[in-house]
C-alpha cells in the first residue's frame, strides 16, 4: 500500500484534516499521527503535503489557528474549525459518501 501513503488526492487530504480537526484543537504533528493511527498505518501524511494544506485551509478561513502550550510545555500552533469549516466538512463528508457509494455500486455491479 505504498502508493496510497503518498498519493492522497488533495481534496481527500483536506477532508481528512477537517475531520480530524473537528474533534478539537490540535497541532500539525498530532494531526499526522492521528490520521496514521486511525487509518491503522495505511495513510501517512507527509509534512510536505500536510503544512501547505493546513495553510491553504487557514487562508480560506476553514480553519483558524491559535498558539498555546502543548503537553510538552512548548508553544504550538493549534488548529480548530471555523463555522465555515464545519459547514464545508459537512458538505464534503456527504459528497464523499455519495461518491464512494456510487463507486462501490459500480464495482459491485461489475463483479456480477
Amino acid at each position, binding site marked *: 500500500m505504498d502508493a496510497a501513503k503518498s498519493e492522497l488526492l488533495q481534496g481527500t487530504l483536506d477532508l481528512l484534516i477537517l475531520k480530524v480537526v473537528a474533534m478539537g484543537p490540535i*497541532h*500539525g*504533528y498530532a494531526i*499526522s499521527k492521528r490520521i496514521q493511527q486511525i487509518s491503522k498505518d495505511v495513510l501517512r501524511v*507527509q*509534512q*510536505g503535503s500536510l*503544512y*501547505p*494544506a*493546513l*495553510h*491553504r485551509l487557514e*487562508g*480560506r478561513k476553514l480553519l483558524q489557528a491559535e*498558539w498555546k502550550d*502543548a503537553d*510538552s510545555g*512548548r*508553544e*504550538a*500552533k493549534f488548529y480548530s474549525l*471555523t*463555522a*465555515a469549516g464545519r459547514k464545508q466538512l459537512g458538505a464534503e463528508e456527504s459528497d464523499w459518501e455519495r461518491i464512494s457509494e456510487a463507486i462501490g455500486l459500480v464495482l459491485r455491479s461489475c463483479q456480477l
Partner: protein
Amino acid sequence: MGWFRALFHRRDRERHLDSELRFHLDLQVEEKISAGMAPEQARREAAIEFGGMELIKEECRDERASVWFEQLAKDFLVSLRSLRRSPVFSATVIVTLAVCLGANISIFSVLYGLILKPLPFHGSDRLVEAYNSQDRWGFTKLPVSYLQYLDFKENADDFEGFAFWKPWTFTIGEDSVPTRGAGASITSDFFPLLDVQPLMGRFFTAENSMPGKDHVVVLTRSFWETYYGSDPAIIGKIVRISGEPFTIIGVAPAEIEAIRADAAILRPFVWAPNKARPPDRWSLTNAGILYGQLKGGVSLSKGEIQLMTLEQRFYEHVDPEIRYHVKESGWRTRIGAVRDQQTGSLKTSLSLLQAGVLFVLLLGCVNVANLMLARAFSRRPELAVRQALGASRWVLARQILVESMLLASAGVALGLALAWTSLRVMNTYITRIVPSVQEISLNGPIVILCTVSSLVVALLIGLLPIMWIWRANLQGAIHLRSRQSSAGRGVRAARSLLVTAQVAIALVLLVGAGLLIESFARVLAVNPGFNAREILHVRVAMPQTYLGTSKVGSTENQILAKMAEIPGVESISLSSNIPVNGYAKTYSTDSSTQFTLNSYPRRESPAGKPDELLNAFDLGISPEFFDTMGIRLIEGRKFTASDDARSPKVFIVDRAFAEKYFPGRSAVGQGFGRGGKNDHVIVGVAETAALNGLEARGGMPFVYRPLSQGGNWHTDISVELRTTRDTTDILPLVRDKLREIDGTLPMYSVGTLQSKIDTLLSSRRGVMLLLGTYSLIALLLSAIGIYGMLAYDVALRTHEIGVRGAIGASRRQIMALILREGIWRTLNGLLIGLAGAFLLTRFMTSLLFEVRPADPMAYLAVSILLLLVATIAGYLPARRAANVDPAVALRAE
C-alpha cells in the same frame, strides 16, 4: 485600525511558520529517541524524513498567496456586480473622476511641454537668448543686430559661444505651386552651440557665410518629411528657392525644432566684413535673434552685465546724438533663458488654468468621497447582514477598497482618453498663439505620474467609508434602519463641511472666469476703426529678381487693376504690411509681415538739443487704403496718384500720433527732419484704427506713407479687397487673377481682417473658454454636492419631518426648513469664497482688460448665480421632504 496593522504582519507570519515546522520536527526526534534511537541518529533520520524545510515553507507561502489571489478575483467579481447594480452611482463617480483627471492631465501636459520640459540640448539650462530693450519707449524686446553678435562673440568670455538667427521667408516650388515658407539665415556656429549632429549630410561651415558660397541649405526634419516625403537621396539636390538655386547639403535632427518649430529651411547668414557699418548696430539693420550659451557657473545676471559693459564700450565712441537717444530710450541688452523667451508669456495663463483644474479636481474628489460615504451608509443593512453571516470587517473593507480602485481605474482610463482628445484641440490653439513651439503630446512619465497619483487619491477616498465601517456598529443597522446613528451624525457633519468648501472653491473659479469673460466682452466692444468683416486680405510675395526694379511697381499696379475687375469687389488697396498684426510689447523679428517701428525726427527741435524722435509704426499704403478699410480721415487730404517717387515726401498720421506729439494744434503742415524744407510733410490726420489688435489700445501710433515713395524694395505686398461676398466664393477668382498677372507669385496669409483680429484674440479666448468650462464643471459639482447632502439629510430626518407634518407644519414650512439648510451652507461657502477670490484674483491682473481684479459686478453676478444654482439643487430634496406622508414616516420606524 487593526486591518492596517495586518499588512505588516509578514515578519510575524514567517517566524510562526518556522516555529510550527520546527515543533513538528522536534516531536519526531523525541519520538525516535523514546523508541530507543541515539539522539544524534534520531535527529538525522527525522531530518531526512521531514524533507526540505525551506521547500515546505515555500509551498505554505504559495498556498496563502493563491488563496489571496482567489479572493481578490472573487472580490473583483463581487465589486463589479455590485457596481453594475447601481449604474447611476458608478457612472457619476467615473465621469466625475474622468473629467477632473482629464482636465488636469491635459493642462499639466501643456504646462510641462511649454514651460517645465527642458530643451533637448546638452547644457540647455545655460542656453540663453539675448535681446535689446528700450524700456522708456515701451519696447521690452527688440532684436539684436549682427554687429552686436560679432562684438559679443569676440569679447564676451562669460559665454561658451553665440549664434545668430535671422528669420527669413522664402518661396519654393515657383514652377508648380508657389508656396511661402518660413526659415532662417543662421551663422554656422548655431549647430555646434546646440551640440547637434546632422541627421543626413552635413551642416554649414564659416566659409558658407561668405557671399558666393552661401547658396546651400539645411532642411529641418519636419520639412524634409512633409515636403520631400523623406526622400533619402535629397542630399546634393539643387532646388530653386525664391528664384535662386540652392544646394541641399544636410537635414537637421528634430531637436533643433524645439528652438523654433516654424522654421523649415536654414541657410547661411551672409555678411561682408567691409560692409559692416557701425550705425547698423544702433539702427538694428540686419537684426535677428541671438542665441548664446553661458559658461558653467555663470549666472544670468553676470552674463547680462558683461554684455551691457560691451554695449557701453561701443556707445562711448559714437555720435553724441546717438548716445543721447540711447540714454533717452533706456537702451539695454538683456538675456533670458530660451524656454522663458519662447513661452514665458503663457506662464501666467497656464498657471492660472492649472490652479483652476486642481480646484476642480479637489471638488470632484470631495463629491466622490461624499458619494462613497452615502453609498456605504445606505448599504449598512447589507453590510450588517454580511457581517452577521461571518464576513469580517477586514473582508468588507477589502471589498470596498476593490470597488473604489475599480471605479478609479475606469475614471483614470476615461480621463486619459479625455486628455488625449482635449490636447488635440488645444494644440491647434497653442500653435496659433506661439507658432514657434512644437506640438504637445501625452508624455509617458506624466501619464504614469498622473495615473499613480490618481490611484492614490482613489485609495484615500476609498479609505473614508472603510474607516467609517470599521468604527460603525453595523449590527445596530439591522434593527434601526432609519434612526440616526452616531456614525450617521459624524458623516453628516463631515458632508456639510465638504459642501461649504465646495461652494467656496466653485466661487473662486467662477469669479476668475467671470473676470475673464468681462474682459473679453470689453475687448470685443472695442471698435477697430475699420470694416474688418468685409475686407479680405491676401499677401503676395514678389520674386527676388524683381526687387529694386520697376517690375515691383508695375506688378502692384496690375494687381490693383486686375483684381478690381472681380465681380463683387467694391474697393481694393495695397499696403506694405498685413494691416492687422500682433505687436503687444515685444518686437517680432519676422519683419516681412509685422509692422516696423520708425523714429521720425521732429523738425522744430529747440536749438542746441538733439532731435526729438517721434516713434510710430510705419505703414506704406496705396491711395485707396482709407476708402477700402473704411478709416475716416479727420483732417487734411488723402494720398493721390501724384504722390510718387519724384514728388515731395508726404505722410498721414493717425489721431493718436497727432494728439501725442502735436497736442492742441493741427498736425497737418508739420513735418519731419531738420532744415525746414518743404519735404516730409504731414498732409492728413486719419482716425485711429486698431491695426495691432483690439487689446493694443494706447499702444504705438501709426504713420502712413505712400507705397509709391518707398522705392521698389517690397519683398511682399498685402492686398485688401472690400467685398460682401463669401471668402470661399471669391478666393478662386483672386487666385485666377494673380495667375494671369504672373504665374510665379505665391499668395499666402489669406483671410478676412476679422479672422486676423480673432487670431490675435485666440490666447485670450482659449484661456477664457477653458477657465469658463472649468468653473461650470465646478458649479455643477457643487450643485451635485448640495443636492446629495440635502437628499441624504431628508432621508435621515424622515421621522422628524413626519412628526412636524403630524403636528401641523405646512408643506411650505417643511420645504423652507430643508432649503434653509442648503442656503445656509451656500452662504457660508460664499463668504469664504469671496474672501479667497479677493486674495487670489490679483494674480491674474495681467490677463484682464480694463477690468479690476476686485470688480464688484463680477463678484455680485457670480454670487447670485451660485445662490440660484444652490436653491435649484436644494429644491428637489425639499419637495421630497414636503411630500413625506406623516403616517408613513412614523410607521417606518
